[in-house]
């Protein structure tokens, strides 16, 4: 499950973030009569078609896995936190319908109506992400039900479950992450192209449009993430303690960057005295709850990994903000991207870095919640299936997804190569069949 989710999360991000970036290009192309922007939008939509399919099938697999792997979890809580999935179903449906219209509508639909068929895709992507994350944040901060003494679930309120305490920061954090990851990822592809000497307008725009989206989102993401961390310190203190390697509850807690977590504190790493307390409550007197507040069996595993994942996420986000500042200053002074190849090199690795940050964030929220599947309500080991053969199926899944990932990349590369070789295979919004009315805005 972890593996398939870790795979799906990247594609889901592209599915949420890409449509908006495509629409920006489409809009610019129509507004400014810019055939290059239109061509980018059209090609990107074809790429999105492929990633959307892979995202959709991996998402379908996940919905199978909910039952295949966690039948006890679903049996007890399926009716409590199922509503977000039902809503996500609607959003996903809308997305699937309009993405099909948008992708297949380039030739025969009129330009502006065609643009508008893409808008629901972007909106549904946001709604769908919100819904799915609502289900996940419910696992972090369960709400909307009561437990009887014998463990049975009563007084179910699906709305309270949907609007649980964690969704208000988790969902925006995830949606912004989607824009951030997609923006840097797409930009990095064009940065590589420019480093190889392809300096035409096509590559410049292909770099600038997604990169602009990403650098605008990054600082906002940093602030949202900061709020999220503070909320976690309050509502899921054990997760926070594990993220920051806080062993004992105390005030004036040192913030460690890097290092190895042991039961007597952090070994190695850079320590800044009092900063952790200050980050939690804007005062070094703030008490931070430590791991010793719960028995060892209730503490998350792989403490060092968690701590590193958290630091890596924050670190990468900070570096990406600097990258954005670099671009911003250069644009402000010269109306151009920085001349040095080091800028392009930085952008070229930013996509991979953003994905690493994404996976780290996901590790923090999921591994940090262990040993619970529903925080302080149900243990993961009590949720799992008793069917045999999980290990076989895990091995098959790993092989299959590796193949899937490789073929996705190969197919996208093949598409790119074909586009480079045959420049004019498709022209957006034309040629149009003679029976139709002439296009409103010649492109």
């Amino acid at each position, binding site marked *: 499950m972890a593996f398939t989710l870790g795979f799906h999360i990247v594609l889901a991000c592209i599915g949420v973030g890409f449509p908006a970036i495509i629409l920006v290009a489409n809009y610019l192309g129509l507004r400014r009569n810019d055939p290059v922007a239109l061509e980018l939008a059209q090609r990107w939509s074809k790429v999105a078609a492929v990633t959307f*399919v892979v995202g959709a099938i991996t998402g379908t697999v996940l919905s199978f896995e909910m039952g295949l792997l966690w039948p006890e979890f679903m*049996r007890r809580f399926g009716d409590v936190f199922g509503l977000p999935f039902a809503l996500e*179903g609607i959003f996903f449906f809308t997305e699937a319908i309009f*993405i099909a*219209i948008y*992708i*297949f509508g380039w030739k025969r639909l009129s330009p502006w109506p065609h643009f508008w068929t893409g808008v629901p895709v972007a909106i549904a992507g946001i709604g769908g992400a919100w819904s799915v994350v609502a289900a996940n944040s419910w696992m972090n901060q369960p709400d909307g039900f009561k437990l009887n003494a014998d463990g049975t679930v009563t007084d179910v309120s*699906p709305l309270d479950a949907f609007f649980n305490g964690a969704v208000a920061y988790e969902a925006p954090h995830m949606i912004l992450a989607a824009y951030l990851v997609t923006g840097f990822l797409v930009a990095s592809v064009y940065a590589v192209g420019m480093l190889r000497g392809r300096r035409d307008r096509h590559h410049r725009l292909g770099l600038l449009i997604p990169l602009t989206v990403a650098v605008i989102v990054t600082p906002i993401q940093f602030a949202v993430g900061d709020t999220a961390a503070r909320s976690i310190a309050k509502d899921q203190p054990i997760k926070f303690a594990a993220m920051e390697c806080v062993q004992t509850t105390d005030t004036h807690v040192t913030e460690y960057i890097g290092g190895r977590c042991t039961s007597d504190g952090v070994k190695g790493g850079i320590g800044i005295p009092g900063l952790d307390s200050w980050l939690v409550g804007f005062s070094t007197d703030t008490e931070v709850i430590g791991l010793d507040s719960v028995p060892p069996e209730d503490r998350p595993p792989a403490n060092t990994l968690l701590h590193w994942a958290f630091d890596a996420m924050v670190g990468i986000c900070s570096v990406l903000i600097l990258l954005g500042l670099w671009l911003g200053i250069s644009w402000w002074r010269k109306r151009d991207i920085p001349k040095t190849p080091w800028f392009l090199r930085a952008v070229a690795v930013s996509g991979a870095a953003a994905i690493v940050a994404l996976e780290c964030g996901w590790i923090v929220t999921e591994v940090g919640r262990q040993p619970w599947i529903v925080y302080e309500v149900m243990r993961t080991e009590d949720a799992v299936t008793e069917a045999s053969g999980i290990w076989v199926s895990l091995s098959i899944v790993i092989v299959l997804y590796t193949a899937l990932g490789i073929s996705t990349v190969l197919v996208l590369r093949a598409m790119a190569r074909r586009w480079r070789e045959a420049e004019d295979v498709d022209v957006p919004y034309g040629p149009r069949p003679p029976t139709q009315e002439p296009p409103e805005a010649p492109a």
Partner: protein
Amino acid sequence: MSSADAVAAVLWVGVTLYAVFGGADFGSGFWALIAGGGDRGSRARALIDWAIGPVWEANHVWLIFMLVTLWTAFPEAFSSITSTLFIPLSLAALGIVLRGAGFAFHRVARRRGGRRLAEAAFGVASVLTPFFMGTVVGAVASGRVPIGNAEGDPVTSWLNGVSLLLGALFVAAGAYLAAVFLVSDARRFGDQQLVAYFTRRALAAAFVAGALAIAGIFVLHDDARYLYDGLTSEGLPLVLLSLVCGLGALVLLWRGVARGVRPLAVAAVVAVIWGWGAAQYPYLLPETLTIEQGAGASETLTAVLVVFGIAVVVVLPALALLFVLDQRSLLEEEAPTE
């Protein structure tokens, strides 16, 4: 009607839509698989690509709709089914991955080898996925899924007469629907040769599906008595309706009439599904778990009904738009002969 019954009806709508649209989609994959090489085979495959390209993803969202409704409204049934039937469901999920990836990749693959591989994955998975889903349905229908975490037999629950028969029937029914739809698509595209080609296949698939259905009567009689009794009492009118529609569609196909074939073929499938629903009522898992017993919290059932209402308002018009644009040939990247 209680709210649990209402949600069960909603679930059944999802099952029906998935059977019709998803089934036709799987069936198209079946025809693509056996079309073979050569000029005629590749033209048939091109028509299939052209026909299902814009709509196939939307067709499969119904599956997600079913799964989500089942686990939200009937968590007990969901977890019992998924844990006992771990193997066929995993295989069906595997098929979905291979099929989707195969279809998405074969359109854009550059090398012939890659394209062939993707096409093969799409075709083979189009047969295996509905087959395994059929075995799952057979396991549920014949009462082989007890309540609990993997309480049923992991193998014989879905490797038995009823399951195998239903697996085969699902493949045949999908192939039949697909062929009927492809006849219309070929006509829309103006290729008379392909019209004849898929008419022959639709007739063949109809006979196979009919034969399997007749064989099914005997298998159900021996092995799924509750369902058999239901189909021959409460469900009987719908079974007969399905028979009439199926025969009507056959006659029209035989005579080459364009209008009315698709509605009749769809009606035949829909009627038999609702006949099955009527026969199994009031059980989710025949003779172990009723709809009322398996239902989740009543607040959740209400919420599911509200969400379904929203879906009807939001999704159906969008879906209608998609199908209208598709049928008017406004959604295409390139002509199918290219």
